[in-house]
């Protein structure tokens, strides 16, 4: 019996349309500033996102200082504390993770991995970045306006978000809402590009079921974002109108500061439905690209095909679909009709099945693999461990009666940081170590990378694992100070001190990472075109870093899926996607046994 590799075929469909000529910029500014090259736009997105993420990292440090050492830092008062909480959350979720995964990795990897010369609408792609940058500047401007940024919590729940009892209720909240609207406009331009490029820009032979899972993850996340962000867009507009024009979309009749307001008849719960109709898919907008990327990192470094590729693709699609009918699990105690709890608890726990399958398949890819513990692989395995923990605690909060004691406590904070902050960030780091050589032509320093991994991985676990137990004890979230309760023992305070110390250490080690990014750009070991010996197309470019147009005079043709690692009988332990099938001799039983 001959052994045929998975999904290998010699047939590649003929060219259907001629390639249009790319517009090549002639000036330095055209190449690197007003650039239409997806790779440059990707770097612009990434650097902006990392910068604004650093702002949010500092904010989290300040927050932890207050919780660990209350009444020590005079510049942290209840207003500024809530402003730190709010801006940290919003920046990390939207302006860092969403922008980095889709605008950064999406822009860089989609054209290269599907075998396209660029995004299909390069000009719109360029505008997308500049609108994103404008949104970031608007958001940062709120630190400098009277009253400072909004302190309404990243969920921005009205009525308090626009009433004077909340910090930044005049300027801050308006800047936040307008910035979000611009972010969504910018994202929509980019997002349409990513989707159309994946659907229409693939090279010959690159069928959908041959796409690397990285592309599947980013593609599905973009589809989710295109469908979910409009809900946030309209709610931002409606809340702006409530605030500036006195409409009552979300504002019922109420009394603020002893005075009755003009509003009446609006529904604060309506806002929550709109927010979470966006907000839950948003979790997967961040998670799915991470799922996709980590699948590839694990497969490459285990030198083994991803286990159950088709199941992985269907799981991504299933998670994407289900993510639109679970949103109200954020609202079990919101005062919505409690009978909704039955439906949303059921859908939420069902979504755990495809998610669990993905975890199994990652672990089963390692099983019987040939594991190389490179820095990207360390981060990938760190992700799996962290994600298992964060995913499992989701089963507590998703199950409606279990959510009752835990909702709005530190348990929630610990859970969502494990599952959608630390997990995706570990993947971001792994991905940067993995693709940095393609972007720059140099490897990141390995020793610094390993220190960065160990401190970040173990440190974040020390931050968030004990935090769950504060929540179980009943410590509420978003509290500036918690003294004066009878049920919280003094010992719980020592947990807070420990968490703060761990958080500061983890924050500090990110400086090492930044230093590595800069140092290696000049001094890193030259990487060559394919340092990880990977199969996907971005590693097969004629130049590294790839030039504008990516693939030289002719586009590659694809003959096989992305996971031909350690194919029995093959000369090397990987076969690039664009390598035509050899007239290979039948594989002997001895060769199979070796595998």
């Amino acid at each position, binding site marked *: 019996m001959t052994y045929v*590799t998975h999904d290998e075929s010699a047939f590649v469909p003929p060219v259907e349309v001629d390639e249009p000529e790319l517009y090549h910029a002639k000036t330095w500014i055209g190449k690197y500033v007003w650039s239409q090259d997806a790779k440059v736009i990707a770097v612009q997105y990434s650097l902006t996102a990392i910068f604004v993420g650093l702002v949010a990292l500092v904010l989290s440090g300040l927050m932890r200082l207050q919780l660990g050492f209350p009444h020590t830092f*005079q510049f942290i*008062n*209840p*207003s500024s504390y*809530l402003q730190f909480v709010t801006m940290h959350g919003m920046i990390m979720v939207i302006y860092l993770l969403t922008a980095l995964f889709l605008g950064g990795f999406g822009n860089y990897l989609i054209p290269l991995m599907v075998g396209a010369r660029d995004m299909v609408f390069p000009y719109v792609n360029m505008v997308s970045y500049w609108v994103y940058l404008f949104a970031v500047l608007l958001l940062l401007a709120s630190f400098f306006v009277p*009253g400072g940024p909004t302190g309404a919590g990243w969920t921005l729940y009205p009525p*308090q978000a626009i009433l*004077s*009892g909340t910090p930044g209720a005049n300027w801050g909240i308006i800047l936040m809402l307008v910035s979000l609207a611009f972010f969504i406009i910018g994202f929509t331009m980019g997002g349409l590009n990513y989707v159309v490029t994946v659907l229409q820009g693939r090279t010959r032979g690159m069928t959908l079921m041959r796409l690397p899972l990285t592309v599947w993850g980013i593609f599905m996340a973009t589809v989710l974002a295109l469908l979910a962000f409009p809900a946030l867009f309209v709610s931002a507009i409606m809340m702006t109108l409530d605030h500036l024009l006195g409409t009552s979309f979300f504002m*019922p*009749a*109420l*009394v603020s*500061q*002893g005075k*009755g307001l003009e509003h009446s008849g*609006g529904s*604060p719960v309506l806002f929550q439905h709109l927010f979470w109709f966006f907000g839950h898919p948003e979790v997967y907008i961040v998670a799915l690209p991470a799922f996709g990327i980590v699948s590839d990192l694990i497969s490459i470094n285990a030198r083994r095909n991803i286990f*159950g590729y*088709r199941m992985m693709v269907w799981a991504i699609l299933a998670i994407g679909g289900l993510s639109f009918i679970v949103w109200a699990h954020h609202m079990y105690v*919101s*005062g919505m009709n409690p009978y909704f709890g*039955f439906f949303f*608890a059921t859908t939420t726990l*069902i979504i*755990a099945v495809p998610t669990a*399958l993905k975890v199994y398949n990652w*672990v*089963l890819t390692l*099983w019987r*693999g*040939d*594991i190389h513990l490179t820095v990207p692989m360390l981060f990938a395995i760190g992700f*799996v*461990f962290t994600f298992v*923990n964060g995913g*499992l605690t989701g*089963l507590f909060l998703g199950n409606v009666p*279990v959510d*009752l*004691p835990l*909702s*709005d*406590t530190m348990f929630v904070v610990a859970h969502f940081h494990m599952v959608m902050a630390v997990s995706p960030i570990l993947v971001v780091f792994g991905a940067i170590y993995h693709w940095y050589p393609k972007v720059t032509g140099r490897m990141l320093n390995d020793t610094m990378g390993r220190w960065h991994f160990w401190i970040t991985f173990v440190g974040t676990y020390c931050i968030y694992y004990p935090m769950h*137990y*504060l929540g*179980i*004890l*009943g410590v*509420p979230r*978003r509290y500036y100070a*918690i003294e*004066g*309760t009878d*049920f919280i023992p003094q*010992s719980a305070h020592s947990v807070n001190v420990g968490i703060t110390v761990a958080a500061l250490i983890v924050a500090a080690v990110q400086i090492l990472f930044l230093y590595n990014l800069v140092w290696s750009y000049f001094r890193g070991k030259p990487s060559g075109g394919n340092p990880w010996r990977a199969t996907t197309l971005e590693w097969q470019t004629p130049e590294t870093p790839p030039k504008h147009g990516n693939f030289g005079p002719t586009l590659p043709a694809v003959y096989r899926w992305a996971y031909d690692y*350690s194919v029995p009988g093959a000369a090397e332990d990987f076969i690039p996607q664009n390598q035509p099938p050899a007239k290979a001799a039948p594989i002997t039983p001895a060769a199979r046994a*070796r*595998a």
Partner: protein
Amino acid sequence: MALAIVLLLLVVGSVLFHVLSPWYFTPIASNWGMIDDTVHITFWVTGIVFVAVNLFLAWCVVRYRHGKVKHAMYEPENKKLEGWLVVLTSVGVAAMLAPGLVVWAKFVDVPKDAAVVEVVGKQWYWSYRFPGADGVLGTDDARFISDKNPFGINPDDPHGQDDVLIASPELHLPMGKPYKALLRSTDVLHDFTVPQFRVKMDLVPGLVTHLWFTPTRAGKFDVLCEELCGVAHFTMRGKVVVEDDAAFTTWLASYPTFAQSMKQVAGDAVAGQQGFAVCAGCHGAQGEGNPQLNAPKLAGQGDWYLKRQLQYFKTGARGAHEKDTFGKMMAPMAATLADEAAIDNVVAYIKTLPDQPASPTVTKQSHAADGSTLYQTCGVCHGAGGQGVQATNAPRLKGMSDWYMVTQLKNFKNGVRGAHPKDLYGQQMVWMAAALTNDAAIENVVGYINTLK
């Protein structure tokens, strides 16, 4: 290898932490033990998966590391294995979901015999209302809210007249009786949480939400607001006292009905003049205050506030702290007012005194501009103009003695004032004053109050 060891240590450490750590659910005080049971089932199922998956992960890292193996196995999929994993996962999920839905069915089904109590949330304090003898709460609306009617009860609704108003963050409940708590907010979202009861629910302006529970253990428990409700969210606390029926009945009877609260008789100012003679010695004949004698200005202060403070001094809720030197002087003075009528009378007399703004003393050097930002928090209760708002139990600040406000803010901050368990409103000021992180902040905020006209 190091990775496998660390993964192993993290798994073992996590399990040990769970078993050994002292931080776990507070002892339950309601009928919702089945919520705890569901949590335990979830811990078992997820705990087994956590240990199994991560130990397998660690084992793979050791067993299949490069060097130990030379070649990976090529195996695109294994339908049988994947099928089994789907089935097992589904079983595990069902084992958690099924009991969860059963418990939730109990939660949405309020017992028919449950008694009713209304919980009212406002930035940033709790109050409560019990239906009177007719067992029905009167209707309410935001537009009825005023200083005299802080609950916003419809004055024309006969059902509301006998409602008992608990204008205090401390709620008492009898043991062993199911209660349906109707939750109402008059401004923003809040969340009524008693950790020992396990259940919680948001208060939503414009809606009446509810939850139910049966208190099963006597004691005093914290009430927390757990939905972000503005800058002083963390100070929105209360207490629930669970006690026997007799104690509960006595407690409830000590609070006024809505009808009684609307018919408060004004004191007799003429009779009060006599009583005020004692006060005038320090506070001045016109109640204008005297910094040399540490006596603050009284004229123009809300009568409801003066009355409450006199009662506090009389009962020892204020002025009993050993470091409260000047407060201790007021205790015997308040004792000269024999009864509630005497207090009403003297307060009524103070109301007739001319109200001239006190002249600024200690805060001339302060930065009123910095204080204005800080004051926004104060303004939510005390009014943007510092005029004092009875509905939020916040006394007047503008035009009152600035040196006195500085002293009192420091007293609150140092626990000299407001820490007494019977000072139900002072506790909130303890947390608020703690947010003024230094003396300069206190002087700045008072300096800003001096600029209010």
